[in-house]
């Protein structure tokens, strides 16, 4: 969750910089200067805290990743440059985990987008009992992931679980790789569809009713209204939702930890990091993995922000009225 809020801030920040860029050259009057100074002073405490709690760990991780640093052999600590990166990136387990993580991310985000859109449309269209529908739909998101993961585990446990029994006896689905991954994705999707739906619903509210009526008059059927008018108009909201969910999904940990503990090659990059850093006490390798995850997430965010640029949420805002 913390990463999500970080990202939202950086997106907004990028936007603000772009907008103020044009005005930057204007010579400021005394009053404006004082105002700007006051503004900086007002945000300073928050900015300093932010840098301290996010900037410092990042720098420290990078520094750790450049060391040979295993707590079991503290006397062997030394600066080794990029050696750790070589070790991790040439390791099969890392790439397996990377593949698994990517697979889970892509598949679950696709499902979440489709189902979330469906749910958003239902919530948007519901006329009676709107509040109730929304509340009920949001329940999965309100449940602590670990708790939900445990209930999924029991449900799929052979012999005792109500879902496992649907698939016949002696299956032990969580101990087979493909079914286990499917169950992990299911748990992930179940939990975050409401979040997706909420974000998309905000986007749906951006589509003026008149626009859909106009499309109906122009001869569009329901599907055409959806694909040719609704989706393009709410594209910025869709991109925000996708960005949040992709970043979040890429850091998947709790569901896997509870459901399979990474057995049968189902562990994610975050699981691998945890295993090395906390269980294996190898700070150097763990930090390297953490930095690699950070870089991947940064790349994903960068690509999305680039997409935002072309979707230009600000540029066609006016036409909506």
């Amino acid at each position, binding site marked *: 969750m913390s990463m999500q809020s970080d990202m939202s801030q950086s997106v907004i920040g990028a936007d603000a910089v772009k907008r103020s860029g044009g005005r930057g050259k204007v010579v400021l009057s005394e009053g404006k200067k004082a105002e700007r100074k006051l503004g900086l002073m007002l945000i300073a405490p928050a900015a300093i805290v932010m840098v301290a709690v996010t900037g410092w760990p990042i720098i420290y991780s990078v520094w750790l990743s450049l060391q040979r640093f295993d707590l079991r052999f503290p006397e062997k600590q030394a600066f080794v440059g990029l050696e750790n990166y070589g070790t991790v990136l040439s390791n099969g387990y890392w790439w397996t985990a990377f593949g698994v993580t990517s697979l889970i991310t892509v598949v679950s985000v696709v499902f979440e987008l489709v189902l979330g859109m469906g749910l958003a449309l239902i919530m948007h269209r519901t*006329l009676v009992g709107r509040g109730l529908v929304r509340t009920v739909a949001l329940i999965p998101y309100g449940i602590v992931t670990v708790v939900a993961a445990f209930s999924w585990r029991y449900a799929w446990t052979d012999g005792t679980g109500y879902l496992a029994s649907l698939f016949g006896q002696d299956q032990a689905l969580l101990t087979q790789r493909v079914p286990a991954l499917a169950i992990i994705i299911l748990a992930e999707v179940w939990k975050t569809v409401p979040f997706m739906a909420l974000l998309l619903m905000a986007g749906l509210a951006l589509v*003026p009713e*008149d*626009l859909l*009526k*106009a*499309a*109906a*008059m*122009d*001869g*569009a*059927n329901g599907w*055409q209204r959806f694909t*040719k*008018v609704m989706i*393009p*108009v709410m*594209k910025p909201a869709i991109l925000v939702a996708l960005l949040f969910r992709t970043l979040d999904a890429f850091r998947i940990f709790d569901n896997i930890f509870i459901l399979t503990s990474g057995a049968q090659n189902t562990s994610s990059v975050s699981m691998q990091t945890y295993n090395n850093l906390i269980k294996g006490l190898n700070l150097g390798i763990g930090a390297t993995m953490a930095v690699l995850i950070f870089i991947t997430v940064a790349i994903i965010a960068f690509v999305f922000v680039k997409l935002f640029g072309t979707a230009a949420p600000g*540029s*066609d*805002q*006016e*036409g*909506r*009225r």
Partner: protein
Amino acid sequence: MAEIVLDKVTKRYPDGALAVSDVDIEIADGEFIILVGPSGCGKSTTLNMIAGLEDITSGELRIGGNRVNERAPKDRDIAMVFQSYALYPHMTVRENMAFPLRLAKVDNATVERKVNDAAEILDLTQHLDRRPANLSGGQRQRVAMGRAIVRSPKAFLMDEPLSNLDAKLRVQMRTSVSRLQKQLGTTMVYVTHDQVEAMTLGDRVVVMRGGVVQQIGAPQYLYDHPSNLFVAGFIGSPSMNFLPATLEDGTLRSSLAELPLTDRIRKLLESADAPREVIMGVRPEHFEDAALLDDASRARGATFTGQVDVLESMGSDKYAYFTLSGEQATSAELAELAADVGSADVPTSGIQLVTRISAASPARLGQSAEIWFDADKVQLFDPSSGRNLTFAGE
């Protein structure tokens, strides 16, 4: 092109609100018809039912002789222009206008030709590749019209298409809408709450109040022969003057004057079975400065003397405003009209009177003037039902 018939059409919204009740309108092929009335009277609802955007609760809607109640908007072959224009923000002007044709799977060459033709008519050619967000209000309005005309529909529906434009542009667009309709000859249903638009644009005007049609007719006819107090007060600007009056022994007594009734009016009143207390209505232009009239003309009406409150010189003539002592006329219709224009909140004492007199009049601000009015042009209304007791039509 086709005629549109509304046969006892009623709309009740799911929340129980009765928005339109038993509306009967026959719109001829190629006719330009205006729906007018105060806010909330059901104009948009009626239009949306014709469009197919709202279900019809009861009654029948026929387009070109076929019942279309159950048809989806896209199967009715009708185009609509919205008050908000409803342009697709992610498409260029060209794509916006081409959208209905693309949906209808028209081939590229034809789309190109039709869009260019429409752009030509609407003077949009140099804006075809711009986005709606970068256009002015008037240009957006024209794009919305363009999107409606490209596919040559059976009819156009317009819901207050000009109300987002500033006054000058509105006048300009009004004439171009009128010209466009004449040029295309397509049936048009046009909603407005601006009675000037209603008077100037349409072949016929439908005046609505509270979901009920009050009167249908040519603009001049509604002006001359309003069937009730509401239509009389709604049509015309400045609006008709209303005063309480009493009928007694063939004379009409009001705070203006004591007026012997003309034979024509006496006859109408007899057949209408008029009550004793009535509301008298006089249009501003039926007044004149008595100083400018000869005796013969004076004899055809009555005069009153009052102090000129406000004098507006319009060049061609003058508006002189008076405040008469006495109670204002009261009725449900008048209260509603006042609420619609917002004048209900303005505290007034006495009766406000607006007169239009010749520019040659010597009347001066703050001084008293003798004003004459035409006895035969007076209209009388029943205060309880609002019915026009001097209604000579149909």
